[in-house]
């Protein structure tokens, strides 16, 4: 369990992290999402006591990081893939970490096996590809068999097989009751791995919600229609109270309708349809919409998100909405 309380970091006049408060709970994968420069890495560095917060605090199982005796047995962290001495072998890079926390040497071989680097254990890590370096970083995080794992952009540089592997690894680790905290700027990746979601933008908390809620709330469903008799179709839809929005290429998007009702309506009036499909807006789009709200100067042309009129708006004040306050 990791708790952040009003965590703030200023670099000169720039506020990198702004009064961030949230909890990372055990047994689930918590995704930490934000665009580049949102303050994710700074937050993670403060969680590990590498950077000093300007104000606020982080507690790990109730303790400050510096008070953990053998931190690798509580927290394993992957910050940057290349945070190792390139001239040292993979084995020795892990061995010196194990020794500093009194972790038995056999664990080094075990974690190298887990991440599939046994065959290059004695090779200098300098020659590793980004994917291999990422695996070595993950091995170092697993070294102490910790109850909390933190990964900063773990799928960076991994091939599809590696991405699949890390996803399953994270889920398996969470299923064992561990706390998994993983950052990413890819919503699609988070949708596949995370159970809980924390979104930040410009250092501020934008969302703290379960993944299921987030999907429910943010993926707009609509029906896409395409017809050679578009004018007649539009009039017809209007007559029946449907709001049709043209989305280019002669297609219409209709919110709050089903393919059945629209198909039958068209059939009754003998209109030819070239397309009739149910659509869901991507989560990626929802995420961009959310974080764009935190950027004041973001250019907003047309409203691509008409379904959220009654939903939360993400303005400068960045309301904190989560499962407890506004969840269903």
């Amino acid at each position: 369990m990791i708790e952040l309380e009003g965590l703030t970091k200023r670099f000169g006049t720039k506020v990198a992290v702004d009064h961030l408060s949230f909890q990372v709970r055990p047994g689930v994968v918590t995704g930490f999402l934000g665009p580049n420069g949102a303050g994710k890495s700074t937050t993670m560095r403060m969680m590990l006591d590498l950077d000093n917060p300007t104000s606020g605090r982080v507690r790990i199982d109730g303790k400050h990081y510096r008070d953990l005796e053998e931190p690798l047995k509580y927290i394993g962290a992957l910050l940057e893939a290349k945070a190792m001495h390139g001239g040292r072998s993979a084995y020795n890079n892990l061995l010196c970490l194990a020794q500093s926390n009194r972790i038995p040497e056999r664990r080094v071989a075990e974690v190298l096996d887990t991440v599939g680097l046994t065959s290059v254990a004695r090779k200098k890590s300098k020659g590793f590809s980004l994917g291999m370096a990422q695996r070595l970083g993950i091995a170092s995080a697993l070294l102490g068999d910790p109850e909390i794992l933190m990964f900063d952009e773990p799928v960076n540089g991994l091939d599809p097989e590696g991405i699949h592997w890390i996803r399953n690894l994270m889920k398996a680790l969470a299923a064992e009751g561990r706390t998994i905290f993983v950052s990413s700027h890819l919503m699609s990746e988070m949708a596949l791995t995370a159970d809980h979601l924390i979104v930040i933008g410009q250092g501020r908390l934008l969302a703290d919600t379960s993944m299921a809620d987030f999907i429910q709330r943010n993926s707009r469903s609509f029906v896409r229609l395409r017809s050679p008799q578009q004018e007649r179709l539009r009039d017809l839809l209007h007559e029946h109270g449907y709001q049709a929005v043209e989305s280019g290429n002669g297609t219409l998007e209709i919110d709050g309708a089903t393919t059945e009702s629209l198909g039958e309506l068209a059939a009754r009036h003998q209109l030819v349809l070239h397309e009739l499909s149910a659509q869901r807006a991507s989560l990626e789009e929802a995420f961009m919409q959310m974080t764009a709200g935190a950027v004041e100067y973001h250019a907003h042309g047309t409203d691509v998100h008409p379904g959220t009129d009654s939903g939360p708006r993400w303005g400068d004040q960045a309301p904190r909405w989560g499962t407890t306050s506004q969840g269903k």
Partner: protein
Amino acid sequence: MTTPYQQPGAPFGTYTSPIPVRRAHLGDALASEWTKIRSVRATVWTLGVMVLLMLGVGLGVAAIVSNANVDTEGEPALGMGFFGVLLGSICVMTLGVLTIASEYGTGMIRTTLTACPSRGRVLAAKAIVFFLLVFTLTTAIAAFVAVVQTGMVEAPDATGAQWLRATVGIGLFVALLGLLALAVGSLIRHSAGAITIMIGLMLFPLVAAMFMMSESLQDLQQALLEYSIPSQLIAIYSESGVSESAPAGWEPVWIMLGVTAVALGAAFAVLNTRDV
């Protein structure tokens, strides 16, 4: 989502590691730093070149003096070790800087401090491992060179105190100089910058003193000559310093001890408060 989402307030699934928890201490940090220093090429290169310089230059000087029948003017042969040690100390300074600055260069420092959040312990472990390694090696090679030189060159016998200074004294001075480099490396966090500063520290006082020819600068010139690192090394070998008022005998070692202690203290204070 294969795992059920837990609502806040639900009982926490907690994971307990099967690895036994034993409190880590400075000894573990020392083991870790020993693994680090022995597993990089920089150590082999710098210390290897130092050994070659001490042996090659030391024995070379002895051979020349012995062949040319140079009069040592009543000084024992031990002082001929100076040239090799002076050159070798540059290697030691380089290794001292790299011991910590390379961790900043590679990003390893973040991994190190995540594993051991007690920054004082990390710095202490690095300092101790580096100091013991350099002290042992320098003392052993200095002793070997001194024995061979004494055998090669006809000169008055050295006293026991002189032998002690030419071996243990030199070992201490060089290892402390290396520790000073380590402290500077920790403060600067940049290998090339810190190595340049250390080489400048070694050469600048002598070079600057050469140009201080005006009357008004004479005191400063005198001080620079007396307290420059090469002069201090010479002073350890001889009974008197480079001049009447200059430090001599064990004094250079104590001076270096003081300077290094201050620098390490500063490095510790800064490391403890700075963002990594």
